[in-house]
């Protein structure tokens, strides 16, 4: 690296010098967000202001647009770099996310109830249809799912291994993130996936009961099923919030309403993915093990309880609410 012996004060030299320095800073700063040194950060706003003042002057003097192109180009880049908030460090962003998730979930209580309702509707229908006539399963469920449901009759097919958790996690997280993103289709995609998953769940349960394999089924499902379903419902509630914002934007423009809802509910989708990483681990490791049903239910119950406790007690909203109560007492 070459360092000039006596660095001139930026902005004191020619305009061309200032613009060249700005171009160099922008180029470096954009390639690696933390590549700018202390001296660079000192210079950046100075040369930026010098250049943008020159642009304003030139426009006032009616300079042809073509000749301003270079100046405008570097100013667009510099403006985007200079005024964007410093991205938070990963650890800090994660801590903030953990605080934010319960707040957002609590705010979306009605959407969460709606998501559970839609899924339950599909579940009841799927259960009723297949319970009445198990042969109809072929029409409703894929052959793979039917094979799966039948398999609960046999013994455990494999030993548990935390590595299986990776498969369950990636698969379920894909569903959760998709059910969230599909909210941007006026909520339609989210509703369809919820209904479909409800039908699969209800149908599978009906098949399992008809085949008399319920104890094996519950032995597999109880440990991880609770938090897995909770996660999917949370992600779906976030999607429904987005869909609702598109359908009823109120005084906002539709696109802006969608944007606000998407940003507000993203923590729910990420929280769902987080919850699913725990669920996946349990599903791959503990669920296949031949433990007593009571043990599995205890594990599943405590996981679900812990998750609900975190959602209910976590976040700043709770503290604020307590603060308000104290104030109310004083008044």
């Amino acid at each position: 690296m070459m360092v000039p012996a006596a660095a001139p004060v930026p902005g004191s030299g020619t305009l061309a010098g200032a613009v060249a320095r700005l171009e160099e800073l922008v180029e470096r700063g954009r390639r690696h967000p933390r590549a700018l040194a202390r001296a660079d950060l000192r210079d950046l706003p100075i040369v930026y202001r010098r250049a943008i003042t020159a642009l304003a002057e030139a426009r006032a003097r009616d300079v042809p647009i073509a000749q301003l192109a270079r100046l405008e180009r570097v100013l667009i880049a510099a403006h985007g770099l200079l005024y964007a908030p410093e991205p938070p460090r990963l650890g800090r962003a994660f801590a903030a996310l953990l605080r934010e998730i319960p707040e957002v979930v609590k705010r979306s209580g009605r959407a969460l109830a709606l998501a559970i309702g839609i899924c339950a509707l599909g579940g009841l229908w799927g259960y009723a249809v297949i319970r009445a006539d198990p042969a109809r399963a072929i029409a409703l469920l894929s052959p793979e799912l039917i094979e799966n449901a039948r398999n609960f009759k046999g013994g455990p097919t494999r030993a548990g291994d935390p590595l299986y958790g990776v498969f369950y996690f990636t698969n379920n997280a894909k569903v959760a993130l998709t059910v969230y993103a599909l909210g941007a289709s006026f909520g339609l995609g989210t509703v369809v996936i919820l209904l479909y998953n409800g039908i699969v769940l209800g149908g599978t349960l009906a098949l399992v009961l008809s085949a008399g394999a319920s104890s094996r089924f519950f032995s597999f499902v109880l440990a991880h099923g609770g938090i897995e379903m909770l996660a999917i419902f949370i992600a779906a509630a976030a999607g429904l919030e987005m869909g609702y914002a598109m359908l009823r934007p109120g005084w906002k423009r539709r696109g802006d309403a969608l944007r606000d809802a998407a940003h507000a509910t993203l923590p729910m989708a990420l929280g769902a993915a987080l919850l699913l990483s725990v669920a996946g681990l349990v599903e791959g490791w503990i669920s296949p093990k031949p433990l007593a049903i009571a043990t599995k239910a205890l594990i599943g119950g405590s996981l679900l309880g812990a998750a609900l406790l975190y959602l209910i007690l976590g976040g700043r909203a709770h503290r604020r609410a307590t603060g308000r109560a104290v104030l109310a007492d004083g008044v």
Partner: protein
Amino acid sequence: MKRLDDVATVETPEQIELELPLAGVGSRAVAYLLDFLIQLIPVVIAMVLLVVALSLDLGLKGSADGIMRGRVPLVAAAVFSAVLFATNFLYFTIWDLAARGQSPGKRALKLRVVRDGGLAIDARSSLIRNLVRTVDMLPGFYVVGLVSVFWSRAHKRIGDLAAGTLVIRDEGAAVGELSVILGPAPSVLAPASALSAADRGLVHDYLERRHGLASATRDRLDRQIADKLAVRYGIDPRLPAAAILDELKGK
């Protein structure tokens, strides 16, 4: 933010307007194709590892029945699905954050994602933008995304709407003659070839409103503007006013 042709205008805190040139559908599609091909690289590598692990395991045990019982193929399969998941959901976000809105494909095509106000993209906007890609890809071949790009004011696919982002053309630093900027105003110079900012604004604004004017007013204003600008930009002032306006529009 308003839109004139293919730019989104933002006002800086210094209250100076900057025009962000919006990217076209074609270059965005090519950039995506490049990124898609690059995404295949880690997936294919993980797949090869998986196949190698499976065949090693088969060779050791000598029968197909031990496939998932060995730990090596299980590890390879787990790595494969993790890589698949990560490239699906994190490829663009990692690049957006590491290179301020430029995935390799966008870099090759000189495009960049920025937030609506022209600021560098943040993690949340990037995540939303790329998760909602699922909707843009419906029902196949990005049909929803294309319709949305043509429909929306600032060429946004649904993901851009949900995230509050724009895809702009970013040619990087180019050579230009800066000395001219602080030199004498061009109106006193010989006929200029390109319209100045003020004149271009005048012509654009006028042409936008022209069709709504009464015909007598329109003819009168046509003539006035043509007379004012024809000489300055070296157009024959004897031409009909409409022809002069046409010429001016093209500059």
